[in-house]
């Protein structure tokens, strides 16, 4: 009996409601010199998780603020000693940096475990079972090696990264499964490359034509081609930063979810790059205009768009899951990776 259902993720958080929560928690974090920020983080995550619904049930977050605070203190000490040493003893700061890099795989595993173990849905916890050795190979070594090929082999490394994270993640006792043909990843980057080429050629042509109509000062005579190339390169670079980021984000998220399985259930996603770009851009503008106070509204808008464009294609009954094994974790890993802005997209 094949009973397929397309179930959409729904997000019911509201900007006005979240603003009130955010502002009070931010205020308390400042007054307590950052100590309360661990509790604020739990409140924030709980707000977003509990407002995320799938098939009539919501998610929940169970992170322990004290574990997060402990992680933040360790991260602060490591980061602080690095940046302090950097000012007057670069050699010693390099040693600290090396030490951080050395324990980074361990930190990443810890952070993934903490995040997943503390997420629940329908009373069952998620879990992460990956080990440090493979974290080192798949999350650090291969991405670094792919850089040596000028990024040409980056899609292979990226696929390994996503596979490592997804295939070791579980809900209850069922593992997630992710696999995708490498051509699909190259397809995304190939399109970006084509767009960029198109953009470069277009702006080059326009600026060359403009340059030949306008009478350039003698100083620039004979340099029209190199000047146009410079203008085109600059415009293309800015477009890469501003436009293609959301293109890659949207396409990548769609691709990842479309190729993720959970037992017999499949996921799907249909995010649009143009919509995402619109949200990111207007959020940015409003945050700047409001001196930062639009931020909680911006977070809600983005979360809503992201979540509501993911769905689950359920094959059979969602109720058939049973709990998996649960282990002990601390929050150290998650905090240090936060501080160093090394976020592993899940």
């Amino acid at each position, binding site marked *: 009996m094949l009973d397929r259902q397309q179930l959409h993720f729904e997000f019911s958080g509201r900007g006005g409601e979240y603003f009130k929560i955010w*502002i*009070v928690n931010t205020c308390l974090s*400042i007054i307590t010199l950052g100590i309360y920020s661990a509790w604020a983080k739990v409140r924030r995550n709980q*707000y977003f998780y509990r407002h995320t619904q799938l098939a009539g049930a*919501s998610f929940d977050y169970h992170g322990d603020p004290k574990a997060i605070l402990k992680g933040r203190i360790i991260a602060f000490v490591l980061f602080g000693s690095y940046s302090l040493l950097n000012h007057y003893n670069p050699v010693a700061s390099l040693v600290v940096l090396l030490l951080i890099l050395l324990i980074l795989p361990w930190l990443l595993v810890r952070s993934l475990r903490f995040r997943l173990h503390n997420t629940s849905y329908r009373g069952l916890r998620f879990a992460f079972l990956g080990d440090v050795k493979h974290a080192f190979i798949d999350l650090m070594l291969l991405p670094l090696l792919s850089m040596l090929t000028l990024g040409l082999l980056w899609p292979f490394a990226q696929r390994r990264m996503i596979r490592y994270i997804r295939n070791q993640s579980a809900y209850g006792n069922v593992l997630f499964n992710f696999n995708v043909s490498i051509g699909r990843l190259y397809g995304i980057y190939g399109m970006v490359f084509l767009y960029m080429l198109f953009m470069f050629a277009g702006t080059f042509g326009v600026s060359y034509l403009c340059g030949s109509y306008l009478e350039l000062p003698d100083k620039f005579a004979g340099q029209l081609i190199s000047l146009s190339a410079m203008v085109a390169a600059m415009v293309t670079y800015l477009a890469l930063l501003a436009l293609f980021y959301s293109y890659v984000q949207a396409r990548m998220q769609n691709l990842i979810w479309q190729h993720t399985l959970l037992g017999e259930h499949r996921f799907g996603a249909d995010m649009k790059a143009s919509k995402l770009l619109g949200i990111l851009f207007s959020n940015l503008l409003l945050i700047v205009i409001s001196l930062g106070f639009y931020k909680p509204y*911006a977070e809600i808008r983005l979360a809503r768009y992201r979540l509501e464009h993911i769905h689950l294609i359920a094959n059979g009954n969602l*109720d058939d899951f049973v709990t998996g094994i649960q282990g002990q974790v601390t929050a150290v890993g998650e905090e240090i990776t936060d501080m160093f802005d090394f976020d592993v997209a899940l």
Partner: protein
Amino acid sequence: MSIFADYYDGVHAKKHKVTLRVYQGMLWLQNSDIERHEHLSKLTIPPALGGTARIILFSDGARCEVSDQDGFKQLFPQQAHSLIAKLEKNAWYSFSALIVIIVLAVAGYLWGLPYFAKVAAAKIPNAWQVKMDAQVLQQFDRLWFKTSLVPLVRQQHIEAKLKALVLPAGGILPQQLIFRNSKALGANAFALPGGSIVVLDGLVELSENDDDVIAVLAHELGHVQAHHALRQMLQTSVIGIAMVWYVGDVSNFLVALPAAVLENRYSREFERNADDFAARLLTNNAISSLRLAEMLEKLEQAHTPPELQKDFMKPPLFDYLSTHPNTAERVKALRAGSGQ
């Protein structure tokens, strides 16, 4: 009374619609298939969060979700008052929090951070400062500096004159006076974080006599007295961290401009203080502070390409992006101070 709830047993993902009742210090939960009762003291009830369902956690991992907020309050009256939930709910508290954040941010920026940087800068041991300057100088020597072409006699002359200055009580001389040549940086002099002063050949060439150089050095000495470079370094790193923490996850690119605007205000204040110090020091040593005013004008001319020596760099908006106060303004202040 009884209320409806969704119950999950923590072992299966199945949702059970149940009714809840509190009776004799116990929570009773039941529907046609399940029946469970638990002592209230063994339950965890997290504080309310916005309009989300209320949650009851059992010690074995099972949970109840109650979307009927009012019913929940009646069933668990003692759980109705969580301090954080109350603060998060009331618009007056949000408004107060908003005001507190704005006041603290402004006060921290105007007084708090400068104060702590001042205290911290005074506490940094001398040995560190010397080491820091050596490091900075090494970097600059590699990237920008060449050996000075100013005759050694002149260098010694200037240094002797600097050392002969009568300083105000508690005043200190620079750790070191360093002469260097740099095409890229042109006519310039600056104080390093540890208290050494670097003089570039361009500045010496621009001067008509030693007093002109001493006038500029007096300004740099103002920076050295008050550890301006060190304080600026501390302040900018705090502002940088705060901005990355706040805006960083939106866009790293966007952090740079507002951070620069905030940091430059500190820098302009230090420049004004150094000017004031220099004016007093020069007057005390029978050198007119007009020497500094004239040198500032010459320096500005030397650093502005002829085609840009027009008015469009003048509007006040440009001043916010500048590390130094408007030269005309500084010269005016120095002229006013010298009584001419």
